[in-house]
């Protein structure tokens, strides 16, 4: 690709981030090895997360194939516009996250901090919508186990148990996802602080890269949750 900068550390242009390299930890022989190991470590961790969420996706798949009618009705009880909005917001936050890596490579501290802040804000808005949804479900008495009294209208002929199961998955899957979002926001806040006080630099940004990987992964989970929970079956 012709517009990729040369593979060296020196980048031309104004830079208000220090170029101090990261500390070499004693177990490594070279800084490149340390970076490589750190990246691989995050990817292996993401592999574990795939299996972690995967167990939930498996259970979901089994029950959806057994009780499609109930799952379809359950899905229509969710607000598709909310789901779509959350999807767009999260995709946007991935975009700003990716741009933040670009910013630190260019040494632009203030832009980096702004982008990280924007990513965090988008994440927070996502969570705000999610918790609003949860509150709404509570008011509609559609929370399995704690407050579940669906009306005949809501069930639309599907067995209540199957709708109950669907909503269990709705809460568990989005809840687990939200937990990961909260962790992600915490991570990025730490990154933003470190970016602001110059602990991160053009030559020492691996923790930002690794945090970014985590954030994108959480976005990918939502990319699947959205159609699987909100878009089952066709129109109502």
């Amino acid at each position, binding site marked *: 690709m012709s517009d990729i900068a040369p593979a060296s550390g020196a980048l031309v242009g104004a830079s208000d981030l220090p170029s101090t390299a990261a500390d070499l*930890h*004693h*177990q*490594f*022989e070279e800084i490149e*090895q340390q970076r*490589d*190991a750190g990246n*691989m*470590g995050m990817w*292996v*961790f993401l*592999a*574990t*997360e795939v*299996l*972690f*969420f*995967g*167990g*939930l996706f*498996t*259970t979901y798949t*089994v*029950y959806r194939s*057994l*009780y499609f009618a109930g799952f379809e009705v359950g899905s229509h009880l969710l607000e598709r516009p909310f789901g779509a909005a959350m999807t767009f917001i999260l995709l946007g936050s991935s975009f700003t996250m990716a741009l933040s890596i670009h910013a630190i490579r260019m040494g632009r501290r203030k832009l980096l901090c702004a982008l990280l802040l924007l990513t965090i804000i988008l994440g927070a808005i996502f969570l705000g919508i999610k918790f609003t949804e949860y509150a709404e479900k509570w008011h509609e008495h559609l929370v*399995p*186990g*704690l407050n579940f009294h669906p009306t005949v209208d809501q069930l639309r002929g599907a*067995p209540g*148990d*199957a709708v*109950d*199961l669907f909503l*269990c998955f709705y809460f*568990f899957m989005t809840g687990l996802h939200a937990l990961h979002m909260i962790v992600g926001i915490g991570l990025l806040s730490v990154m933003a602080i470190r970016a602001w006080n110059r602990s991160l630099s053009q030559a020492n940004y691996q923790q930002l890269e690794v945090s970014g990987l985590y954030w994108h992964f959480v976005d990918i989970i939502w990319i699947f949750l959205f159609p699987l929970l909100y878009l089952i079956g066709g129109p109502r």
Partner: protein
Amino acid sequence: MGVAVAQVSPPTGSRVHYLNESYGIKSWLFTTDHKRISLLYLGSITVMFFIGGFAALLMRLNLLEPAGAIVQPETYNKLFTMHGIIMVWFFLIPSIPATLGNFLVPMMIGARDLAFPRLNLLSWYIYLVGAGFTLYALISGGVDSGWTFYTPLSSIYLTTHVLSAATGIFITGFSSILTGLNFIVTIHKMRAPGLTWFRLPLFIWSMYATSVIFVLATPVLAITLLLVGLERVLHVGIFDPAIGGDPVLFQHLFWFYSHPAVYIMILPGMGVISELVTAFARKRAFGYKAIAYSSMAIALLSFLVWGHHMFVSGQSVYAGVVFSALSFAVAIPSAIKVFNWTATLYKGSISYQAPMLYALGFIGLFTMGGLTGLFLASLAVDVHVHDTYFVIAHFHYIMVGGAVMAYLGGIHFWWPKMTGRMYPDLWARFAAFVIFIGFNLTFFPQYILGYLGMPRRYAMYPPEFQALNVLSTAGASILGIGYLIPFVYLIWSIRYGPEASPNPWKAKGLEWEHSPSPPPKDNFEDVPVVTEEAYAYAASEPARV
């Protein structure tokens, strides 16, 4: 391995090494040195081993009489549950990886530590927190779901401390995941110059395969236990048949982890055996690549067979056929290893120190346990012996006759390296014999009991089974004594044992040839450069008497 270490190490007392380079409890509790962390784990899992063993002792005492000799059935249920939970998750799964693995992986590949030393320490603390929750469950009245937590019993009907036990296991799972992650990255990225994949010791191949399983299987256990916990707390019915939930689905999720988990327990043991057999026969490993590939094959195939725990659960017969066929397949790489170890012994220069005795015991007992696994993999036979003592005998032959013996063999073999001291060899050989005899007396009768129909997890049994049960309990007492003996002399040796030379076994391997006993904090003076294959013993080497 190609680099001579000409140093004559001064007596341990005057040389600085990883044990004496700093003192005080904080230097241990906040260490990031993989060698110290391995000892922290060693202490912790030994404590858990004796707690789990005590539960087993009470169980076997109770089974002296057909009507139950010392405990009520409700208590008995709690005993076998805690025995299973503690032995599986708090002893066997961490045993070799967290002790020998942590100590040896960096040393065997010529690295100064693991890739992520602080994560390593964190994984020990996570283990402790998990153990704390589980012991709390034990102390506050116990759990009686069985270590398998089958639903809806565990998720709806039990009133015992299922939640704290499940939480403890959930937390400890992350300890495993971090260890596996650390090993994978370390082995990929931190091998010494010249140390290509096919020059690695076979122990490293085993640890790598084990780590793959750690990383891919454990998260599924985590989500499964989370679902059980949520069901208990929120009273939702994910696995409740009354509202359409599927209990067999729980079993799919549970065994998807738990079957590979048993390979987590045996693969490291196999790795140890490869090291012991080559060292004490003073020969290259026969079929090195076959053993290496078999380790990876086991890691993959172990994920394809879990349904063999569910043949009578209501699972589809067709799925059963698939799982059965694959279960036969998974035996093949294990068998390949046994053949290769045997071929390594052939015309070797064999000496019979304690580690070798444990290795020989492993090969025989593991083979018996593995063969009975084939019986269980056959659908029709399994219908007869499922949930009987036959199954118990099968897995104890592998986990105790196999994994624990490999663990003890490894501890003895690397003890001089880890502590700088030698243990008393005569006592060690004696203990190995006691353990071997006690083990077989305990568990061989259980094959017969199971085949005759005695069910497992029962506090009482028909009177015609008493003789065999008494035999088994007698064996268990001998086995218990057998385990106490090394506990005593190994601890004794730390202070009073003769100091060990850098390589008392004259074994090949970076940990032996490139580092004194005990090693310095940074493992080596200089980073080794590897030019030899693994186990490059000379064509004819005399046995060490």
